[in-house]
């Protein structure tokens, strides 16, 4: 196949999705320009408008509402599922019919991710979708919007015929990555390559600053990428080094999956205001509460933008219906309160060795999704930077520069707050540098498109590899004690940083498996242990390695016989992990499949 016309970067976000593209073959030697696709979407009944992003919401209207072509799309006059801006509005008005945060459900191990369970707690007449199907529906929508806007009748320009880079949170484990690729396949995009979001944000900065980025960082520096979006928070660490006179970038660590973001901050502030209003005898209904959340977001953005210094920020909830002014509720929210709720709640000053608290906070937990137990982003950041096991010695990474991304980080004062906290940990003197980026919302998709160019040798690449060390459970060789569970050791099958396109073969351990019966391995992962090579056995692992799921396969052959196998792990070019059983006698191979059903 020829070089496709476009390289496309898709940021399939928790709350907002963006598609960026760049020509596949640049006209000159210059790095080509990256553009953002305007996506046609339903913004009200009978109305379609274009916006640079697509809110990641799916609204499943009832029969009565969807009739008469109210939600007709330019490419589908009989459309009955609304995706985008109108679905986002409906999420507040009719939550039982709207699927939100489908991406976070993809990595939720407490549910079967192929079962039709979304919208969570939906009414009976709603036709539900599985987390994979929901992600797939979003991707299929993006594909159709692209084909309508960009391709017309020319099939060579259709999205499925382009080179596509799809971003995932750096914290997505091998299973969630596999499911993302499956969702893309179901959406009619058979060839996608995965890229971690913080890396994409970094690429976007390289793209925007051109050659100047080489001046902004120095050799042997560590760059922290702090990506706080609407629903998730993601950390990555990049090391700058020099090889043969050229700067080289390595992604050396990623954080754990954190479901806390800007939406939680707005909610926390809104509950604070609602409690204050309740003290003075005003009770808010759910409609007013939504208005309040919106007003609180504005107040938060105003207060932290640093452009105005005020003592109070007005929060108004307009009256419902036609009595707009008469029923308007107004409160002057002291700047001190905003600061206390947001700064102390989400960005508290803490020592570098303080770990996130584990108790559940009821205000932030919603049934179904496992939200971060501790909303304090800074404590998660402390845990990310410390406690890394490097050669049996716990060391703290002290980043020299920080790159911010995500909608929350548009606020200047919040960026400064994070830098203040980082400074208080840093052992070297001097203030941590902030790498200036623009466009905190669209950076990830743009960066993904740039990465496509870089893969063709037209730009610099970050050396990354696997985001975790992966292990399987093996029974310890000791006599079984009745009534005691047999201890399980962790055997490293794929080490951290294993490069794409490479294969690790574990010859240390041979398994004797029964043919014709299902074979199940326990599958673990760790972001803390980075130095275990393939084949390493960890005996005491429970505090550093987490269970992810199980791996399953059924060996074909004559039932009842046994076969000796070794394990093989392959980090694929597209960013997924495959595990294989390889027979030691003949070279027969069986692929181990991830179990995505509910985990106990």
């Amino acid at each position: 196949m020829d070089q496709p016309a476009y390289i496309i970067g898709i940021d399939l976000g928790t709350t907002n999705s963006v598609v960026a593209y760049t020509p596949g073959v640049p006209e000159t030697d210059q790095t080509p320009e990256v553009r953002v696709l305007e996506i046609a979407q339903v913004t009200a009944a009978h109305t379609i408008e274009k916006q640079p992003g697509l809110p990641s919401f799916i609204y499943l209207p009832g029969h009565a509402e969807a009739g008469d072509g109210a939600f007709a799309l330019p490419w589908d006059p009989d459309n009955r599922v609304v995706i985008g801006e109108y679905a986002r509005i409906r999420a507040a008005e009719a939550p039982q019919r709207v699927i939100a945060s489908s991406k976070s459900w993809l990595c939720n191990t407490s549910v079967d991710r192929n079962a039709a369970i979304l919208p969570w707690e939906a009414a009976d007449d709603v036709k539900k979708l599985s987390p994979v199907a929901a992600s797939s529906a979003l991707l299929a929508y993006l594909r159709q919007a692209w084909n309508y806007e960009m391709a017309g009748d020319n099939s060579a320009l259709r999205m499925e015929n382009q080179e596509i880079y799809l971003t995932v949170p750096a914290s997505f484990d091998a299973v969630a990555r596999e499911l993302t690729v499956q969702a893309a396949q179901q959406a009619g995009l058979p060839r996608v390559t995965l890229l971690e979001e913080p890396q994409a944000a970094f690429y976007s900065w390289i793209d925007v600053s051109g050659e100047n980025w080489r001046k902004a960082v120095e050799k042997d520096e560590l760059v922290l990428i702090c990506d706080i979006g609407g629903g998730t928070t993601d950390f990555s660490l990049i090391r700058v080094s020099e090889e043969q006179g050229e700067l080289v970038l390595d992604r050396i660590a990623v954080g754990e999956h954190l479901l806390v973001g800007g939406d939680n901050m707005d909610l926390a502030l809104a509950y604070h205001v609602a409690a204050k209003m309740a003290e003075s005898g005003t009770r808010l209904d759910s409609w007013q509460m939504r208005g309040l959340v919106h007003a609180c977001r504005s107040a938060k953005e105003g207060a932290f933008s640093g452009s105005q210094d005020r003592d109070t920020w007005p929060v108004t909830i307009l009256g419902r219906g036609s009595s707009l002014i008469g029923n308007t509720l107004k409160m002057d929210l002291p700047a001190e309160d905003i600061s206390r709720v947001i700064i102390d709640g989400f960005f508290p000053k803490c020592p570098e060795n303080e770990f996130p608290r584990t108790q559940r906070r009821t205000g932030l937990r919603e049934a179904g999704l496992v939200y971060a137990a501790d909303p304090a982003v800074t404590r998660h950041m402390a845990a990310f930077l410390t406690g890394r096991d490097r050669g049996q010695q716990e060391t703290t990474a002290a980043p020299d520069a920080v790159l911010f991304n995500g909608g929350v980080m548009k606020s200047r004062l919040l960026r400064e707050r994070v830098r203040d906290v980082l400074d208080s940990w840093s052992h070297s003197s001097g203030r941590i540098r902030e790498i200036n980026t623009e466009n905190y919302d669209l950076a990830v998709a743009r960066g993904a498109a740039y990465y496509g160019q870089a893969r063709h040798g037209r730009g610099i690449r970050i050396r990354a590899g696997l985001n975790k060390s992966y292990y399987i459970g093996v029974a310890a060789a000791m006599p079984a004690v009745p009534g005691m569970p047999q201890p399980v050791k962790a055997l490293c099958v794929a080490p951290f940083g294993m490069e794409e396109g490479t294969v690790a073969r574990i010859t240390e351990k041979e398994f004797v498996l029964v043919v014709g019966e299902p074979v199940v391995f326990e599958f673990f992962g760790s972001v803390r242990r980075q130095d275990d090579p393939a084949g390493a056995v960890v005996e005491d692992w429970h505090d550093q390695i987490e269970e992810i799921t199980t791996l399953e396969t059924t060996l074909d052959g004559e039932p009842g016989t046994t076969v000796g196998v070794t394990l093989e792990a392959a980090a694929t070019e597209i960013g997924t992990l495959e595990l294989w059983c390889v027979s030691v006698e003949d070279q027969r191979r069986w692929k181990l499949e991830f179990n995505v059903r509910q985990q106990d």
Partner: protein
Amino acid sequence: MNLIPSLSRSSLLRLFLVNLIFGCLIGAGIWFASREVFATVSFADILEVISQDPDMQSWVQKNTRGFDLIQTWFYPALAGLMLLMTLIQWMLLRGGFKRVIRKSGIDAASRKTAKPAAAKKKEKQEDEKPAREPAGREQKEESKRYYLHLISVLQRQGRLMDFFHEDLSAFQDAQIGAAVRSIHENCAGAVKKTIAPAAVIDKPEGREISVPAGFDPAAIKLTGNVTGEPPFNGVLRHRGWKAGRLELPVLSASGDPLIIAPAEVEIQ
């Protein structure tokens, strides 16, 4: 702008096919009819009748060449006529939808509406006029929608209609001020997003500027002591407004075009 050529190409093909079928039908009809006539009345009978009348005989002899000519050239002439008709119909149709497309403003938003309208016309090519009228009505409904669209966006995002409808004399200034803050913020955001307003002359008001010859009177309005020929020198009093971007939404033809905001009914 490759919409027109592609439409005319496809319609030419269809017209040709339809006229070909018509031509074949007419030709076959005549052929069968003539065969029918000669099956019941044989040629010999006719000759016999003719030979009995000397007047008729001489007339037939005079016109034999004409009859031969008609017999050999009838079908080619029919084919030619049909081709000519195809061409004329095509040119009429092409002029028709060129005008419609130009009127609707050819862009991505109108692609959806222009195509079905043209397709409908192609199907009803035999009677062109009745086909164009519904398309025109549809367009009229659509312009109504476009006209109300911006105010519908401002109501949806900033409650502007609700605000206009209020009787301000019933409230204290402080109350109004509280409500206006939110309305202003949301409406300003919506306007910025939909039309990205920008100044016509992006210079500080009060600055002396020069208006060159050949300026656009729609973009620059001259006031005060306007005499003589341009260039004019004057003081910029108002920077003017223009839309920084204008992306028309796609509005579906169904539904009541007069709705600005739906009534809300909460199901308990």
